[in-house]
């Protein structure tokens, strides 16, 4: 009997340990409970940022950004965090940044916010991705927040203004998407650079006769391809249309992709490769052109072909002017409402926000990637990068990528249907109809 009790005791101990382990995996509940009134903007007297600046504050702040993985800004960001913590004893910053690749950052941010575990500060997409977070009042209106410094910004700040008139995100850098061109290959084959639509089509024709792939793209993972062909087919005015308009230029853009595929413009296996394999064809100088974003310069230089490459705006076929660009500043710094309403964290969070969005920090982060800073100007930049900065400066019009502003399901349908347009199974108008029906 005693032996039975002993066994029972051991079993109970095991069960208790199991429960402890499971409980330890749960959410930290040490945060003070918030009432509904806590979500309101705090009274002026609650915020003493100006007065407390320089004082020792004890707080632990969680920061989530996309400056991780292969992002060259990641190392600079880590340095900045170290400097901030050295200058602000008592403030501990936990960096939970994740690469923007594969969209896992979206799942992390959404999960964190829905499980009451949101970061105090985040550098995230101020696009359709942040709509739910903003609607739920999970982030604060920066313009009306005590202590938040939004001075010194260029026009990128205004681009962040939400449909409700408020600014929830402070930009860091801007980007552009364009046609990366291997000038050396064009010179070697005696082909003119694609500065007009006719020259672009001529370049496709000429390279198609050689062993060089004219344009390195994936027709399935075709974010840049769809956007640039929609822009080319109708210029910026049509590019800015809503999906519900079923704009004829968007449909024509999709059909033009099909026509160019038949001319041999794209890799033979364009329907099954992804963006990274397409980019590697360009980096290995097996392809003459590539649609990419300004962040591609890092890998182009790493591949050792930076000297051979320049960047051109997508040539416009009709309805606009060549020089119009897809771009902007789609990411920004958000402060969570929970952190701002927490007396123990507000000061430290606002201080870190102001530090990271100061002109000096922004220039250091922009310098690492060659992107266009949202404050100040980069000096002594690589002449190749300067070409891209000039593109932005000279652009008659710039607008955000299509997938930043339409229902993700509709855009996925558009881009994954491109191989069917190429094979002739569907027309551009048909794909557009189907995508619009998903909204």
């Amino acid at each position, binding site marked *: 009997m005693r032996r039975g009790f002993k066994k029972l005791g051991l079993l109970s101990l095991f069960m208790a340990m199991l429960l402890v382990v499971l409980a330890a995996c749960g959410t930290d509940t040490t945060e003070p409970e918030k009432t509904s009134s806590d979500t309101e903007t705090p009274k002026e007297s609650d915020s003493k940022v100006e007065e407390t600046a320089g004082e020792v504050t004890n707080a632990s702040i969680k920061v989530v950004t996309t400056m991780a993985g292969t992002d060259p800004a990641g190392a600079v960001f880590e340095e900045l965090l170290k400097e901030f913590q050295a200058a602000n004893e008592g403030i501990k910053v936990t960096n939970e940044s994740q690469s923007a690749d594969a*969209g896992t950052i979206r799942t992390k941010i959404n999960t964190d916010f829905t499980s009451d575990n949101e970061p105090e500060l985040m550098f995230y997409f101020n696009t359709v991705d942040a709509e739910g977070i903003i609607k739920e009042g999970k982030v604060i209106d920066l313009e009306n927040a005590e202590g938040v410094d939004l001075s010194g910004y260029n026009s990128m700040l205004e681009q962040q203004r939400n449909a409700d008139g408020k600014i929830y995100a402070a930009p860091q850098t801007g980007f552009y998407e364009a046609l990366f061109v291997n000038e050396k290959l064009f010179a070697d084959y005696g082909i003119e650079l694609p500065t007009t639509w006719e020259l672009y089509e001529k370049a496709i024709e000429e390279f198609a006769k050689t062993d060089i792939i004219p344009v390195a793209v994936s027709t399935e993972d075709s974010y840049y391809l769809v956007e640039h062909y929609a822009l080319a087919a109708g210029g910026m005015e049509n590019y800015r249309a809503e999906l519900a308009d079923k704009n004829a230029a968007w449909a024509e853009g999709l059909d033009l992709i099909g026509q160019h595929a038949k001319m041999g413009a794209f890799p033979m296996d364009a329907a099954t490769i992804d963006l990274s394999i397409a980019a590697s064809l360009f980096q290995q100088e097996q392809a003459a052109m590539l649609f990419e974003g300004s962040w591609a310069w890092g890998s182009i230089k790493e591949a050792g072909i930076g000297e051979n490459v320049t960047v051109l705006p997508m040539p416009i076929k009709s309805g606009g002017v060549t020089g119009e660009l897809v771009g902007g500043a789609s990411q920004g710094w958000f402060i969570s409402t929970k952190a701002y309403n927490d007396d123990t964290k507000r000061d430290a969070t606002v201080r870190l926000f102001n530090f990271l969005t100061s002109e000096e920090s922004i220039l250091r982060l922009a310098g690492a990637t060659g992107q266009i800073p949202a404050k100040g100007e980069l000096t002594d930049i690589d002449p190749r990068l300067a070409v891209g900065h000039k593109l932005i400066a000279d652009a008659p019009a710039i607008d955000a990528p299509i997938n930043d502003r339409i229902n993700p399901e509709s855009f996925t349908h558009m881009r994954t249907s491109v191989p069917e347009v190429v094979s002739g*199974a569907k027309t551009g108008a048909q794909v557009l109809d189907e995508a619009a029906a998903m909204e």
Partner: protein
Amino acid sequence: MKNMKGDKLFIILFLAPAVLITSVFLYFPFFENFFQSFYKTDGFFNSTFVGLDNYKRLLADEIAKKATLNSLQLMLYVAIFQVGIALLLAVMVDSIKVGAGFFRTTFFFPVVISGAAIGLLFTLIYNYRNGLLNEILVSLGFERVLWLTEQSSLYMVAIPTVWSYVGFYFVIFLTAIGKIPQDFYEAAQLEGVTGFQKLTKITIPLIVGDIKVCLVLAITGALKIFELVFIITRGGPARSSEVLGTYMYQKAFVDANVGYGATLAVLMVVIGLTLALVTNKLMKSEDITY
């Protein structure tokens, strides 16, 4: 009677952790998933009850139909070739006297490699421009071949799928064959039974229970095929190799339509359970003990 009561207590205590863990990590998510299938939701902030709309959409969804047919086709290849080749290899390895250990390790090896690594490996093998197969063809003076076309993509995905898991069933069969007493074969030999007859009259009938288990595992496992298709073809070209796993992932995680993704997951569970039950029913046999 007193002892029985004690046993019950131990049974409950021993089963409790398993019940707890399966409930939290399997049954709760399953019911939650079923619940989500009645909503138009991104899984986070936006959620609207839509009743049976997702199921109506599923019935009219051509891509879902194609993905289901592709999944069933893959299931057929897996059931025939994965289990068939594994049985053949097990019989062959069992019959050799030297090097059985080497073959056992070699055939089992792909099982321990992650699906993602195998996917990447075959991506590099099939790649049109710089892939292994085309490099060999070019070096031999032939033209490059587009291996992943709308007609061929599903077969090309089936090859690594079958190869990567043959070893698992091979080990099960080898163990099952090893358990058959040698006396049976010796007696058969005295009766003049030939090598092939030994296989059909003794080996296969005596391991039919294991074959049944392997078939059920292969059939239900085929519905979970995801990473190889996702990495090698991305479901393409033109959705020709789309399977339920990749389509469900796309809807739930790429398109942020968790409600419809959950509906596709329910379909996968229904198909899996139905086929497992049917297979069990069709292959019902008396357990053989020896």
